[in-house]
């Protein structure tokens, strides 16, 4: 046990010294453009728009762990909300390994590799009545009809991969603009949707290989 601690301690010291010495937290908020084929889904909803189909809202947090390397997580979301009807949400979760270098003082070139764990939720809010519930409330002296709200959700998750190259311009040392071009590869399977614990068939959307353009504002701490 003592020997293990003797080995572990210097390793931990080096690891935390590296983290502490080079610590820089980069928070990025931005938007992305991609081109998934959601025709089947949009037809089923009877509605589609450029924003709901092609635009991603991005949040990314990375931490500089080495001179040229950052690791972190990201969440890119695509929403489609229909009034009094279905909600659809794609969530692309990104586990980032990113390297970068500075050709000039305020300009950074960055290179990103990241596995992804993605999901899609389709939900609807339902207003319902239940005789037992109404009976119970009426025994307490309440009159009238009572409704309750519930949400029905079907969802699916799948692995993916993304890679991008980009350029970042630092307006200040703590603020930058980031532009990236890349792609995402998704291993989506329409036969792996879940509804109430049961496996069901979902929409045949095409997400296989998608070009991706992202633009964001970066805050450095």
């Amino acid at each position, binding site marked *: 046990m003592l020997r293990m601690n003797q080995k572990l301690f210097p390793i931990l010291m080096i690891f935390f010294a590296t983290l502490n010495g080079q610590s*820089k937290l980069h928070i990025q908020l931005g938007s992305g453009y991609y081109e998934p084929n959601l025709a089947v889904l949009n037809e089923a909803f009877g509605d589609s728009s450029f924003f709901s189909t092609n635009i991603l809202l991005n949040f990314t947090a990375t931490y500089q762990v080495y001179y040229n*390397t950052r690791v972190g997580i990201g969440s890119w979301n695509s929403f489609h909300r229909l009034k009094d009807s279905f909600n659809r949400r794609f969530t692309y979760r990104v586990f980032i390994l990113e390297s970068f270098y500075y050709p000039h003082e305020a300009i950074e070139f960055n290179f990103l590799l990241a596995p992804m764990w993605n999901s899609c939720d389709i939900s609807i809010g339902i207003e319902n009545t239940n005789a037992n519930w109404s009976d119970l409330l009426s025994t307490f002296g309440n009159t009238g009809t009572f409704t309750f709200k519930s949400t029905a959700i079907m969802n699916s998750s799948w692995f993916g991969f993304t*890679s991008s190259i980009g350029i970042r311009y630092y307006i200040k040392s703590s603020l930058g603009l980031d532009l990236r071009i890349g792609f995402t590869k998704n291993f989506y399977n329409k036969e792996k949707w879940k509804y109430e614990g049961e496996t069901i068939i979902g929409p045949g959307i095409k997400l296989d290989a998608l070009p991706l353009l992202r633009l964001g504002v970066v805050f450095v701490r």
Partner: protein
Amino acid sequence: MVGILFGQEADTVEVHPCDSPLLEQKKGNEKRPLKLSQMLPFTINVIKCRFSERGKNAANIQDVRNKKMTYKDAQQFKSFSSTCAYCATVMVVVFYLSSIF
């Protein structure tokens, strides 16, 4: 009598927010923790200091220094980071070439 009292100048010296003893206490060499009651005046002083001319100058100097340090540290790839960059570049280029041809 009242006029004389109000006419007197207060016998106090105004301290610049950047020279506040609370900032000195927190950020000086000793780095002693603040009491809970001192947190609000400390925060107000930090904000006032940051937006004062002295604070702006200090922030600009810090900004330039940070940029230079970051540039110096990362103007060239070190160790495995170039491998990651090569992989990412090749993948993106191959992806776009394959979608064209």
